[in-house]
C-alpha cells in the first residue's frame, strides 16, 4: 500500500499538494504492480509508468515554485477532494488485466482531477492551467494504454 495524504483543495498550494500525492500514489502502485509475478509481462510498462509519474511530480513542484502569482492568489472553494481520492491498496496476485484495470482507475481519477483543476486554474493562473491540462491528457493516454494491455 502506498500511503497518501490528501489535503482539502482550498488553495493553489493545496491543489498542487493533492496532485503530488496523486503522483506519489500512482508511482508507488505502478512500482508494486511491476513486481507482481503474474503481471510480469507488463513489468516494463509499469516501471516506465512509475518513472513517468515521478517525473510529473517534479513538474508539479516546478509549477508551484515558478507559476504562482501572489497578485491573484484567490481562495479555491469549488474543488471537492472526495471526488478525486484514489485507491492505492495495490492488489496482490494480480495478472496483467487486473493490474491494468486497477491502475486504470487511478489514471481515470487523476485525469478528472487535473482537467477539472485546469478549468479552475485557468481563471487564476493560465500557466498553471496549461500544466494541469497537459497532465490530465497524459492520464487519459495512460488509461488508453492500460486498456490495451
Amino acid at each position, binding site marked *: 500500500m502506498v500511503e497518501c495524504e490528501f489535503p482539502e483543495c482550498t488553495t493553489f498550494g493545496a491543489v498542487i499538494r493533492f496532485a503530488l500525492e496523486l503522483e506519489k500514489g500512482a508511482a508507488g502502485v505502478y512500482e508494486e504492480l511491476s513486481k507482481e509475478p503474474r503481471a510480469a509481462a507488463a513489468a516494463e510498462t509499469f516501471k516506465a509508468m512509475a518513472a513517468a509519474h515521478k517525473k510529473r511530480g517534479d513538474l508539479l513542484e516546478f509549477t508551484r*515554485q515558478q507559476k504562482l502569482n501572489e497578485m*491573484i492568489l*484567490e*481562495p479555491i472553494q469549488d474543488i471537492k477532494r472526495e471526488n478525486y481520492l484514489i485507491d492505492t491498496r495495490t492488489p496482490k496476485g494480480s495478472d496483467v488485466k487486473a493490474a491494468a484495470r486497477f491502475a486504470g482507475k487511478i489514471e481515470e481519477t487523476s485525469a478528472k482531477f487535473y482537467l477539472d483543476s485546469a478549468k479552475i486554474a485557468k481563471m487564476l493562473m493560465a500557466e498553471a492551467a496549461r500544466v494541469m491540462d497537459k497532465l490530465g491528457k497524459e492520464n487519459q493516454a495512460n488509461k488508453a494504454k492500460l486498456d490495451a494491455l
Partner: protein
Amino acid sequence: MFERPPPRFSSSVVRVFPGRYKVLWPCNARGWHRRIDRMTLLSEVKKDYGKLKNFVNGEWIDSTSDKVIDIENPSTGEVIGKLPMSTVEETKAAIDAAHEAWWAWRETPPITRGRLFFRLKELMEQNFEDVARIMVQEQGKTIDEARGETRRTIENVEVAAGIPSLMMGYSLEDGGAEGIDEDAIISPLGVFAAICPFNFPAMIPYWFWPYAVASGNTYIVKPSSQVPLTQNYLTKLVEQAGFPPGVLNIVNGSHEVSDTLMEHPKVKGISFVGSSPVAKYIYKKSAENGKRVQAQGGAKNSLVVMPDAVLERTVSNMLASYYGCAGQRCLAGSNLVAIGDIAEPLLKKWVERSKLIKMGYGLDESVNMGPVVSAKAKKKVIEYIDSAETEGAKILLDGRKAKVPGYEKGHFVGPTVIDQVTPDMKVAKEEIFGPVVTYLRMDSMDEAIDFIHSSPFGNAASIYTQSGKWARDFRYKVQCGNIGINVGVVAAMAYFPFAGYKDSFFGDLHGQGQDAIKFFTDRKVVITRWF
C-alpha cells in the same frame, strides 16, 4: 485474478488536523485497519533561530547591545528568536563599512555585478521553500502567500541582474554644437539604506537594495524588528553568492538604527515602507539631512463594484484582496463600494464566501488566512470593529472572537464584514490593516470616485466592471498610484514602478524597475570637444 481479503472496516476519510485528512485504507492482515492520528504540517525550518547577528563588512557580528526583544511566531505565540537592538555605534560601523566598500564596488563592471545577482537568484531558487517557510513562521502569512512573496523577491533580483542595459546613459553627436558631443552618464552615488516594514519580510527590502547595489552603490538594510528572520536568512545567501564585504550590510534594531541612518552624512538616500505618519517623519528628517528619500506610507483602498460586474469572479478575486495576508497589505482592499442594485446580491455572496475562508497556521497548505502579526495589531483591528458598531454600522460577519483550535495563542482575527458603513465613519476613513471589509453603497461611479478622493491616501483603487467606458473613466480620473481593473491586488511587477499618491507616498521616484535605478543613480553630463 487477485483476491483481496475482506475488510473489517471500510476505507474511510478521517479528519486528523484542521484542513488535512488521511485516507485510511486497510493495509495488512494483522493491523488491518491502520490509523494515522495526526497529519503533519509542512515542517518548520527551525524551532528557534537564536539571537540574530548583524552582517557588517562581510562578517556576522554579535551586537553589544543589552536590549534584546523576542521574535514571535504570530500563529503559535511561541518565541522563535531574539533580536538585538543595535547601537548607534554599530550602525555607524556598518555605514563606514559600506562607504569603504563603495569605490571598489563602483569600479566593478556592471556585467560582473549583474553576474552576482544571477548567482544569488540561483541560490534563492534552491532555498525557495526555506525562505517561504521562515516567512510563515515569523509573519504568519500562509505558505502560498509566502511562496508568492518569495517569487516576487526573486523577480526583483532577476530584473536587477540586467543592470548593464538598465543603467545605460545616452549620447548625442554634435549635441553641444558642431564638433562638440554631449553624453549623459548614469553613475552611482554611494551608500543607501532601507528601513523596512513587517508585512513583506522578504520582498520589500528587495524593491530597493538589488537595484542600488547592481547600479554600483553599497547598502544597509534595517529589517523590521518584528520579522527580521527572513531577511537575515536571505543575507546568508547573498554572502554565499560572493558579494564583496561591505556591499550589503544588515543592521538589526529599531529607531536608533533608523535615526542614525537618516542623520549620517555618508548615507546618500533612504528608502522606507510603513505607515503614513512614520513615512512623513522619515521623509522630513532624511530630507533635512540632505538625502534622497522614497517613503511609502499607508493606504485605504476602495474596490468599486459596478452593476455589470461578473459577480462570481469578482467575489473570488476580491476575497484575495481583503483577506490575503490577513488584510495586512498596503494594497489590500478595505472599503468595498457597491454601485446601484448589485449591492444586495453582492453582499449576500460576499458573506457566504467569506464564511468559507479557512484560518490557521500558514504551514498547513489548505489554510486561506493566517493571523495578524501581533497581539497589538489584533487589538487595534478589534478596536476598529468596535468603533464601527458604536457608530451605528452593522457587523454581518464578526471575526473578533475567532479561534483556531490548537492555536489559542495565535493572533487570529476572522474575516469581518461590516455593513451600513457611511463615508464619515472611522472605519471608512482610516487604515485598519486587518481582514475587515467595510461595505458602502453608492449610486454612481462618480460618487465612488469622490469618496476615494476624499481620503488622504492614494495607494490603490480597483473597479470591477465589464464596461470599457467605465473602466477607462475610472483609470483616467482616480488619483491613486495603482489602479486595478477587475484586479484587487494591484501589485506592480518588479519591472514596473511601485508607490502611491498623496499621503501614501512621500518622494518622487518609486520603488522597483527603472524608477529604482533613477533613485540610486545620478546623471552626469559630459561635453567633449577635440582640437
